[in-house]
């Protein structure tokens, strides 16, 4: 009996912790949503009200009137998508060579890639910026996309996954005289789909939230991404909290949608970055 009681008590504590943490995680975001729909007087009412007095959707529409919101949304979606597709292609190609091919210097090259994971990004930030400005690429999509097209981390992660794939199909295909490209395209890629999706979603979310690089390589609102746009917004609206929070909601909403759809892959991606790395 006492063990049944103990298990009930444990479950109650467990649920209490679950709910408490959910409240802590969600309350600030609900506060953002609530503020974004308030009138200016309602924003500053004290004590704070969680449910807006008068649902002021014009906070959102006025952002579209004043600022290139569509442009920022499109820029962010375009840059994130282009970078992720590029990373998936280039990193998986390199990962396939490292995982499955034998050639002189393979292990050395792999360790060089691996060692570069220890380099903090600040060290390469300044030369990358200098290169981009010497090329005259400041304020272009090229500047936002090309420096991110491959990452040693992606190569490492995908290579680890490719190593676990069964070799039989490839060997049979080799005996059939299939080229390496054909094996990569018709065997490896389909088998590796879950890990590619996990890496892709993880990388997409990182790109969407990237701030420092777009901040230093863009000047005009035309080329800005949503995160840099938020900074622009916060400089122009100062303490107009309702509109600032509306901007926040707009920058978050598409990402949240993708996260909701691809949650499974995203959490796998995090697991892959974690402990056993």
């Amino acid at each position, binding site marked *: 009996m006492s063990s049944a009681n103990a298990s009930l008590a444990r479950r109650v504590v467990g649920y209490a912790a679950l709910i408490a943490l959910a409240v802590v*995680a969600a309350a600030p975001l609900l506060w953002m949503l609530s503020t974004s729909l308030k009138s200016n007087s309602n924003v500053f009412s004290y004590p704070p009200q969680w449910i807006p007095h008068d649902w002021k959707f014009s906070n959102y529409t006025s952002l579209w009137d004043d600022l290139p919101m569509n442009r920022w949304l499109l820029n962010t979606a375009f840059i994130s998508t282009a970078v992720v597709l590029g990373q998936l292609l*280039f990193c998986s190609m390199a990962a396939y060579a490292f995982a499955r091919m034998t050639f002189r210097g393979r292990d050395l090259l792999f360790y060089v890639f691996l060692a570069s994971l220890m380099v903090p990004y600040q060290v390469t930030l300044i030369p990358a910026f200098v290169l981009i400005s010497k090329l005259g690429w400041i304020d272009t999509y090229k500047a936002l996309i090309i420096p991110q097209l491959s990452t*040693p981390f992606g190569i490492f992660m995908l290579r680890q996954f490719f190593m676990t794939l069964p070799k039989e199909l490839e060997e049979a295909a080799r005996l059939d*005289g299939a080229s390496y490209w054909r094996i990569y395209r018709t065997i490896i890629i389909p088998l590796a789909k879950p890990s590619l999706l996990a890496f892709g979603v993880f990388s997409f979310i990182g790109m969407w939230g990237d701030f420092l690089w777009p901040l230093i390589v863009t000047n005009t609102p035309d080329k800005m991404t949503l995160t840099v746009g938020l900074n622009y917004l916060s400089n122009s609206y100062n303490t107009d909290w309702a509109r600032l929070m509306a901007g926040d909601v707009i920058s978050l909403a598409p990402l949240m949608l993708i996260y909701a759809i691809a949650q499974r892959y995203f959490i796998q991606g995090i697991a892959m970055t974690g402990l056993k790395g």
Partner: protein
Amino acid sequence: MSVVSSPPPARAQSRGRGRGRSQRSRETLAAWLFLAPSTLHFVVFTVGALIASLVISTWQWDLVTEHQFIGVDNYTALVNDPQFFTSLGVTGIYCLITIPSGIVLGMLIALALNQKLRGMATFRFVYFIPYVAPVAAVALLWRWMYNTQYGILNWFLSGILPGDVNIDWLGDPRLAIVAAGIMDVWKNLGWSVTLFTAGLLAIPAHYYEAAELDGASAWQRFRYVTFPLLTPTTFFLVVMGVIGSFQVFDSIYLMLGDTPSSHATTYNFYIWQQGFRYNNMGYAAALSWVLFAIIGIVTFLQFKFLNKRVNYELG
């Protein structure tokens, strides 16, 4: 999959060593073609950039006028730069705020959750929202929550503490870094909870059964079984926490603007300030190499001294 079922070509198998060599060189060629895009990228943006960064760190250069070679002067100038030391201190304080609280909270919550409760997937979805959200977006949100007069945080604290709480979270120069740290803990809590949950799942049940047979209390089971076996996770979070603290930029920039007080200027923020606000490219490059060295040394020391206490029995 059609590749597999197509009939094998009637190819002569008798070409012997010649075939072996041409096969090998074909494989090498193919491998380099597969590696070409990533390697080219790596040569330009990592290897080339590292060399360039080292060279720039020996220059006095504002990006516009002709650079001047000044040898190691940028590095020796660090010794006389009070902001360099202040930024190191600020980053250290940031570590002390975020790492222990992230670990303690993450472990406590993971322990509370370590039962097969229903609805875990839904809860986990919610916990990860702050982690997924861009730092820029949540920094703006927290700037509003930290508002002295109308912020929800002071209102909440006034409710649970005696008297009216009017903390000037972002205006007080020394408190601002604490405020940024609290936001960081909130943002990353889902991550540490998940890592600890995975760590707990890896502990075999018979460890607990044996402990129970020996009459161990719940505290003793935690102290002698759970805690030691979670040390790899704890160690990983400490190492990542230190590295992450040296990368803090977005939240400071969006909550405090481009010239925060020196007591809120994190190391990474100082690099940005020197490079992109004052156009001291050489000095910023030197700062970034010192950062590289510091992270290397700190990580090495952590492995040397903390790793001894890490229990990898399950690894």
